[in-house]
């Protein structure tokens, strides 16, 4: 009994809400959330060109329908008492083989519902935006089919009640991401970018597979309830292995160090894809996985520390890369990487951070999607130009884009009272929380997130000023295309406006009385308030000072003075950052090169040894046949003579043996 009490005290999850059965028509039909966009994707893909005229609106309707169903379920969950907010919806017996029996089911709880709302709401807005953005593309219907497929897979990922079903969604979003990055796959480099993303994700998936195998070996089950229930009896090393394997999976999907190199290239996809998949939703699946597996990480402090370290490295890494990129989408991609680094770091901090990781994820989903859509709008008005050195002064020509992007910018750099301020400030505070027995951690990770905040302010302000302010540096007719920037159509600006409103208000609204953290408590547990190593006002003040400093430096360099149209040579660090801190080169040297060498040696071995043996046998057979076939001279009489000789020989043998 005393042992049990000790475990319960160590794990704040021991008193988590017990899953209850679904109640009400909407909770019972939660499967529609996944089914509606999936069916829509199937219809769009199977109907082919016939659905070209109305296909995009079907896609929008499917996504919106999922949003409405999600909202109804959310309302029903909010009406339920706090203790009954974890609902498990059994669907059917899925796998039944030997010891493994697995029921496919959905888990409706505050965490999954938060994701459902984020994915379907932002997703629907981006669907609407895409109707106009992809207007000129002959394959718009296919694009919407893939978007719907993505929404279905992402919802399956967050709603799954077992790691296996989660894995199905996990692979589904990977597939959708691959299809959408390579949507314009007639350009070789885009197809290569899609493949790179797919392969980097496969490396991560290996981690998820290992984690599932380890869970099945120790627990004998793969559904969340059984696995998390068995964590208290699991030894620390097993929990650490599972935690590290899950971290590998999260790194692949969320573009965290060392598997982050695919995200920059993934910008090859159409901009709405970058907004939806590679900023707001799919890349945050890794954070979801870590937060969902919180009980495992609570039992494995080493794995938790690894999560924090990965998050810290990635947030600085992304921020440094973001400072040097001139491609507007790649700069935003680096920023995404960095912001997800924040979320990872928060998720690794344990119960003090889980809720804030998800909170930042939600606000980030809004302002980053908004900014990506803004970047798409700029590209739309500037003949698909992406080089920020050839933008400048666009504020006067694209007012709505300028304002909505500006609000997103203020939100991401964390200016009060915009969304990012509330979420990021909480993460910074959480990073400064003292960890018993390791005082250095609070100081180290606290200063990393502070520096990160300053860098974020610098690179986002740089991006904003280079694009919308300063002098016009547009390409002229002599350089290929004269630019006539114009505001985008309403179907594109309205989603941006809605997301901008979210960027302004969401953070504040969800922070009133800690409503969001309380909402997530049934999943991530309740934490008593503790004091960080520095007083909170000091942390807030130093964050703001760093943010203002970063923004001011960017303003001085990119708005107040002339920006060169061709990138200057720059320092060694700038050059490294432009090339993603040589991550591709490192990957090539460490993995791709030896891998290719190994493959070549295996091919050589195969050709020489295996093929050699097979070909050798064939040669011997041919050699014998060459000699024997001389007997086949085609003359009936010689065959008859042979038969006669044979008969005589037989006769002689029979007679000789008789005598």
């Amino acid at each position: 009994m005393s042992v049990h009490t000790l475990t319960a005290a160590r794990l704040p999850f021991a008193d988590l809400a017990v899953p209850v059965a679904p109640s009400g028509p909407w909770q019972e039909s939660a499967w529609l959330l996944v089914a509606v966009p999936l069916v829509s994707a199937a219809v769009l893909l199977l109907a082919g060109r016939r659905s070209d005229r109305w296909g995009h609106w079907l896609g929008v309707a499917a996504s919106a329908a999922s949003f409405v169903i999600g909202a109804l379920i959310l309302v029903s969950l909010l009406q339920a008492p706090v203790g009954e907010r974890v609902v498990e919806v059994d669907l059917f017996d899925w796998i039944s083989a030997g010891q493994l029996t697995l029921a496919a089911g959905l888990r409706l709880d505050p965490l999954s519902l938060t994701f459902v709302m984020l994915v379907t709401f932002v997703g629907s807005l981006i669907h609407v935006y895409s109707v106009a953005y992809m207007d000129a593309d002959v394959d718009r219907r296919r694009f919407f089919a893939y978007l719907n497929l993505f929404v279905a897979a992402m919802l399956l990922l967050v709603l799954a009640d077992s790691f296996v079903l989660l894995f199905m969604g996990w692979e589904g979003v990977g597939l959708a991401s691959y299809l959408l990055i390579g949507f314009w796959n007639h350009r070789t480099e885009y197809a290569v970018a899609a493949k790179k993303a797919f392969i980097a994700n496969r490396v991560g998936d290996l981690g998820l597979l290992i984690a599932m195998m380890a869970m099945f070996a120790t627990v004998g089950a793969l559904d969340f309830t059984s696995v998390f229930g068995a964590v208290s009896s699991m030894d620390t090393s097993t929990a650490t292995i599972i935690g590290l394997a899950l971290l590998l999976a999260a790194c692949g999907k969320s573009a965290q160090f060392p598997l982050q190199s695919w995200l920059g290239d993934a910008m090859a996809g159409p901009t709405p894809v970058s907004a939806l998949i590679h900023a707001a939703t799919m890349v945050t699946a890794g954070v979801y996985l870590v937060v969902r597996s919180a009980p495992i990480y609570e039992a494995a402090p080493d794995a938790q520390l690894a999560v924090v370290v990965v998050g810290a490295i990635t947030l600085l890494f992304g921020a440094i890369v973001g400072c040097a990129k001139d491609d507007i989408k790649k700069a935003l991609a680096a920023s995404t990487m960095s912001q997800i680094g924040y979320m990872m770091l928060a998720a690794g901090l344990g119960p003090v951070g889980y809720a804030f990781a998800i909170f930042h994820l939600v606000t980030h989903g809004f302002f980053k999607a908004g900014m990506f859509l803004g970047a798409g709008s700029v590209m739309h008005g500037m003949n698909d130009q992406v080089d920020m050195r050839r933008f400048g002064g666009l504020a006067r020509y694209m007012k709505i884009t300028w304002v909505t992007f500006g609000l997103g910018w203020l939100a991401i750099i964390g200016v009060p009272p915009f969304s990012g301020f509330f979420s990021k400030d909480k993460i910074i505070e959480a990073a400064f929380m003292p960890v018993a027995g390791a005082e250095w951690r609070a100081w180290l990770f606290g200063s990393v997130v502070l520096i990160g905040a300053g860098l974020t302010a610098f690179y986002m302000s740089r991006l904003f000023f280079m694009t919308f302010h300063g002098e016009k540096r547009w390409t002229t007719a002599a350089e290929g295309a004269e630019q006539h920037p114009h505001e985008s159509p309403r179907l594109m600006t309205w989603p941006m406006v809605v997301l901008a409103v979210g960027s302004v208000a969401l953070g504040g609204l969800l922070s009133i009385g800690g409503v969001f953290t309380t909402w997530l408590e049934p999943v991530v547990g309740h934490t008593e308030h503790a004091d960080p190593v520095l007083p909170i006002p000091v942390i807030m003040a130093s964050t703001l000072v760093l943010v203002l400093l970063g923004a001011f430096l960017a303003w001085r360099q990119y708005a107040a003075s002339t920006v060169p149209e061709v990138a200057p040579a720059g320092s060694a660090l700038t050059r490294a950052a432009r090339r993603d801190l040589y991550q591709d080169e490192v990957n090539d040297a460490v993995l791709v090169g030896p891998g290719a060498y190994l493959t070549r040696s295996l091919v050589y071995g195969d050709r020489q040894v295996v093929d050699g043996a097979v070909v050798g046998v064939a040669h011997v057979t041919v050699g014998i046949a060459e000699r024997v076939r001389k007997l086949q001279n085609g003359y009936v009489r010689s065959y008859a003579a042979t038969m006669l000789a044979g008969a005589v020989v037989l006769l002689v043998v029979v007679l000789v043996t008789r005598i």
Partner: protein
Amino acid sequence: MSLTNYLVLSTLLFTIGTMAVLLRRNGIIVFMGVELMLNATNLALVTFSRMHGNLDGQVFAFFVMVVAAAEVVIGLAIIVAIFRTRRSASVDDVNLLRN
């Protein structure tokens, strides 16, 4: 008359037939050689039947006759077909299965 004479005759006929098959080029003659061999065998079978005092050999001879009749039909048809395409009944001209 000793039954051995019949066997000697049978052997002679069989040998003549064999030689006709092996040495002659004309398909018809080769065919006649085959028939001769079959009938030599029949003679031997009937003789053995007589020697052993039962009807087994005679039954065998009937079977051989039936098979020979069928074989004649097929064989002559083949020879006619070959003659039509090659304008020759020589078995040495028909060596497409060489090598």
